[in-house]
């Protein structure tokens, strides 16, 4: 019983990790494109440029993997439990943005992220 719980928690962590990797690959690819997007034409240009970056497709792969693991988790665990733990992706993404993308995550932003995570915990379990 206890072992399967740890297994589920690990799987939720894994699905969030895959999601973080896919978001990171998307954002870091977009960061390499120097384009001020303000028209539909430029949006299409941005998407075409993105499609040529191999990292994007690795990101899609991780995104698919994340969904597959998530669906498996949902078939094993209760939705409220899975959903509340899934909120750790906000922390993972913030950490990754800070350490890998070199975004400045200040105190106010961390407080906001903590509040969102707390809110999700309450919504999921309440």
């Amino acid at each position: 019983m206890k072992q399967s719980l740890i297994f589920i928690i690990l799987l939720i962590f894994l699905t969030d990790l895959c999601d973080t990797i896919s978001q990171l690959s998307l954002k870091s690819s977009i960061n390499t494109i120097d384009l001020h997007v303000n028209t539909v034409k430029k949006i299409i240009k941005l998407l075409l440029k993105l499609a040529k970056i191999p990292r994007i497709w690795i990101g899609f792969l991780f995104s698919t993997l994340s969904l597959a693991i998530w669906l498996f988790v949902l078939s094993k665990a209760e939705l409220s439990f899975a959903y509340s733990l899934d909120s750790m992706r906000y922390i993972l993404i913030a950490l990754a943005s800070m350490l890998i993308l070199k975004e400045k995550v200040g105190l106010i932003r961390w407080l906001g992220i903590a509040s969102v995570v707390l809110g999700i915990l309450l919504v999921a379990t309440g």
Partner: protein
Amino acid sequence: MVKKRRLTLKIFLFLVFIDFLETFAQFCFKKTALSERGLEIKAFADAAHFIGTIIPSPFLWLGLISVMMIFVIWSTILSKIDLSVAVPVCSFSYITIPLVSVFYFHEKISALRWFGIFFIIFGIIFVSLSSKHKEEPE
């Protein structure tokens, strides 16, 4: 080059729009899945059969179109603001998805959930503010 990374009202509204699209997509996928309720997926052949039966469902395609729209808007937004801002601000779907299930399935929202919704909104405001203060001079 100093990139503009400020969260404007326009971008904020697009992020909220993504949440509504996401909610709509989840609703469509749930409707699609419910239409095949009796099916139990045990083997790969069952899964293939399941996919075969849901392909004609209009809800599936509406959901898929929404997901594609989300990707296009999301990419555009990420070209303008930080990932650590965009992701938390996009958590309105944690509020809208329960609300939709309340209206659709006539559930009730407990006091604890209302507290949760309050904290999410509070957090989104904080994250949004952190992006406004950080505007770097060119």
